């Protein structure tokens, strides 16, 4: 990472912003992990270990596709903005986009 910063000086600002934002999310109370996934379900950036990341990325990518197609089937002018899955142990939040997917796993306060 450090090498990159020196060879491409114009870009780090952007990257820094991205990093900052992701760090901000990660530092929220109760957040266990954050994963950024591309459009095909391949993780780009993660704070969890790689096997868990791959598991979450694959499963949630498919679920998001299904959810999105469901929403659009019901009303073609509608679109999925946010998906929250609440389980006994924690809550998984997914924000889809055209190209990317951001997944955050949080342990709710109680």
């Amino acid at each position, binding site marked *: 990472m450090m090498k*990159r910063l020196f060879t*491409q000086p114009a*870009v780090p600002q*952007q*990257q820094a*912003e*991205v990093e900052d*934002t*992701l760090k*901000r*999310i990660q530092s*929220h*109370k*109760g*957040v266990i992990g954050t994963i*950024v996934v*591309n459009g*095909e*379900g*391949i*993780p*780009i*950036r993660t704070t969890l270990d*790689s096997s868990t990341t*791959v598991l979450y*990325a*694959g499963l949630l990518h498919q679920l998001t596709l299904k959810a999105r197609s469901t929403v659009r089937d019901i009303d073609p002018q509608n679109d999925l*903005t*946010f998906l*929250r899955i*609440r389980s006994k142990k924690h*809550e998984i*939040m997914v*924000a889809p*986009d055209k*190209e*990317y997917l*951001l997944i*955050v796993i*949080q342990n*709710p*306060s*109680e």
Partner: protein
Amino acid sequence: MSSKRPKNRASNKAKEKDKKDDTDFPSPDESATESAPPDYIFPLVLTSATQELFGCRADEDVTGENPYKLLKKEDIIQDMKTRAAVSDFSPVKHTVLEYPEDELLLVFDRDFTYGQSFYLVLTAEAKENILKPSVLQGEDVEVMEQEEEEEEIMPKTPESHPWISLGSEQEIEKESFTDSRPKLRYKISRLLRDFGAPVRFSDRSALDGKEGFVECPSYQDKSFSIRELQRHTSVQATSNIKHSSTQTLWKCPKNMCTQYEPREFSADEKENHLQSENLKNFIQSVVIRFEMALQQNHIMNVFCDDWVALCEDESALTGKTETQLKEYQSFTDLHYSREKTISHLQWHPTISGVIAVAMTERMSFEERIDNSTKLMLNPSYILFWSFSDPINPQLKLESPEDVLSFQFCPSDPNIIAGGCLNGQVVLWDISAHVERLQGTRSGDKNTINTLDKSNDPPVVRYCAVSGIENGHRSPITDIQWLPETFEVSRLGSPEENTSQISAQIVTCAPDCCVMFWDLRAPHVTTQSLTETKNKKKTEEMPLENPHGVPNTFKHLNLTWKPFIRVSLPKIGTSGEYSPLKFSLRDNTVDYPIVSTADKPPPNSEREDGSGFGQLPSGKEQKPLEHISTKLYVGTEDGELVYTDWKMEKDNDSGRLYSAKPSHRFILHDTLVNTVSRSPFFRDIILTVGSWSFAIWKEGVMNGPIVMSSCSQKMYTAGQWSLSRPAVFFIGKEDGSIEVWDLLEKTHEPSQTQNISITPITCIKARSISSKQHLLAVSDGLGILHILEIPWTLRRSSSNERKNVWMYFEKEEERLLYFHQRKLQHEKEKEMEAEELRKMEPVLPQKQDEELQADALKEYEQYLSLETITLKDTNLLMGTDDASDL
């Protein structure tokens, strides 16, 4: 109407065509939309006279359907000449004179579209055009005219015409029915004499004659044999379809596996993605939603089910005030309970519904001495009661003397150890009679055991009894088994118990001793455990021996002696404490232990330097580090002593002696009759003295964390509730039970209930099932009462444990706080006293000076007083004046 429509369309089209050609000239149909008259139209008012003259009377000559009238130019000019200015046509005089043609068109404007009832068309072209719709070139005109006419005719009601015959009435006549002659009437009836005559039936064969039966044979009906001459068929060409199937033959099974790994990006690609603009935008747009969601979760739990949370806190849903202990059953025996009292009772640990009680004579010491011969002849018993039979006890355990306390062995419920009045420890083995006990167990039903009708329950003799000279010298008041988790060595240090069988007993008696006994053969305890482990296994552990009763502990009989004798020397003074009850720490050990550092139970933090905590860990497996060897002892004098049972070696003489107890608390005035630990908290102890009770916390050495006020009646027994951490039961001298709920009230019991008339001797609780919790209460008359604990007392609320814990902590803090305050007070007092002492030497000096000054003053005053009085009484010497003379 529908047929008219296309014509309409055609007419419209034609009109539209006109319209397109001459857009200036609107057709009469469209004239309604126009408001301002165009130039060629001149609205005219025609008086009735003019109308008659020109033959264009409104609604007569000229109607709405036929509004056009061609007026001769000459006529108009003539009119104008005759009437000059009065003429209606005067305004258009010019136009008329200039008009090229002979005839002008006058249009009756029914609808007043141009403001007047008539209008004159001023130009020839307009005239032509207006008239065009009605005078069109070719057939279309006629058709349109006809259409218009027809359309105009339609609304007219049809006029009736006479009917023209076309020959149809003859056909109708042919088809219709008419009577050619009048109808004939016949009336047929039977002869009158046949009415009511008896009927005679006879047989007739169906085959007689041709009229016998009627046959309807089938025949080929010609009308149905139609020869098909023509037939319509359709043929379709399709492609060739062929069905076929195949089956794979799995001749050679072969294992196949697929291994996959997820697709991942390399580091470079990840970098590329991370730096892309798209990602940045995406993240920024999405972050807002996330923050909202994260914060929402933070603020409150949306999915919390209020209903469920509500009912937990509320009291019983039944609404009934079932707070009383209901009497479930009571046991008393005619033979064995007479004049006896129950000293101790215990529930059978494994068989539910079986309870054992120890019967002792209700005599004081002197009476015992007096009746000693009689007592020797009558052995004392421990009776086993079962719920199925309330009249006859199931089993009787015979003991040499009255048993004051006994307990079932935790690892083998067939072994029972009891402590006698004379200081002996007695062992029983009831393995032979377990089936009887189990067979009679029938839970709640009170079925009398009809199979075994023997009224006399079997008697089990004791299999071993300790030696009299080696045992206690006073009645054994408390006996407990050590749990199977650890053993105690000769030195008192706990070691792991690999056999997982409880083999050691601890007893205490008011002879100021706490003794440890081992069930195994005596020589085992002196050697190291590694050697004797094998020997133990080969030597037929007495507990594994399934032989009859007498052989079980034969090796111990009459020679049994304790291997550790812990004395309780008094702190500060000489003498010893006389224990009545004791309570050991409930130590749990995890097996197998690989390293001693794993999973320390909570008690490990609480021990204060018992000496063995500094042993090297890891390899040494035998001694257990985290067992607390401290025990609380309640004494005869109402003290609670906290001591360590580990023996210390006296370096000089090599003898083992026990250390002085670390703490001692005087609280109760008379003997302590219960020292029991709470089943929920390992370090909370309840001690019940005669007039009060106290709750102690192990580790808090200042005093009890909760102390009750003195009660009116003596307390005789105490027991924690098994299901609710805040509840405990206290038995009183007047036979009533107090239920104390620490979360409800701490200054008085939450309820009191009278059970019997004689003092309660022992209380033990037991949960039979989740729905039934029973409390066994024994009283002074020898009656065993079984009470059912109501729902409110057995159901703990969700936070009860936490609340009780917090309450205890609060009390502890209070205690510490007050202790601190007390210390502070003392310090302050000392400081004040010092200051006072400092102040004292200064004052007396001052006082001396003052005293002197005061004395001088007084003396002077006295002198002056003296002179005055002497003067008054003329007794003053030396000052006589010559004036007196």
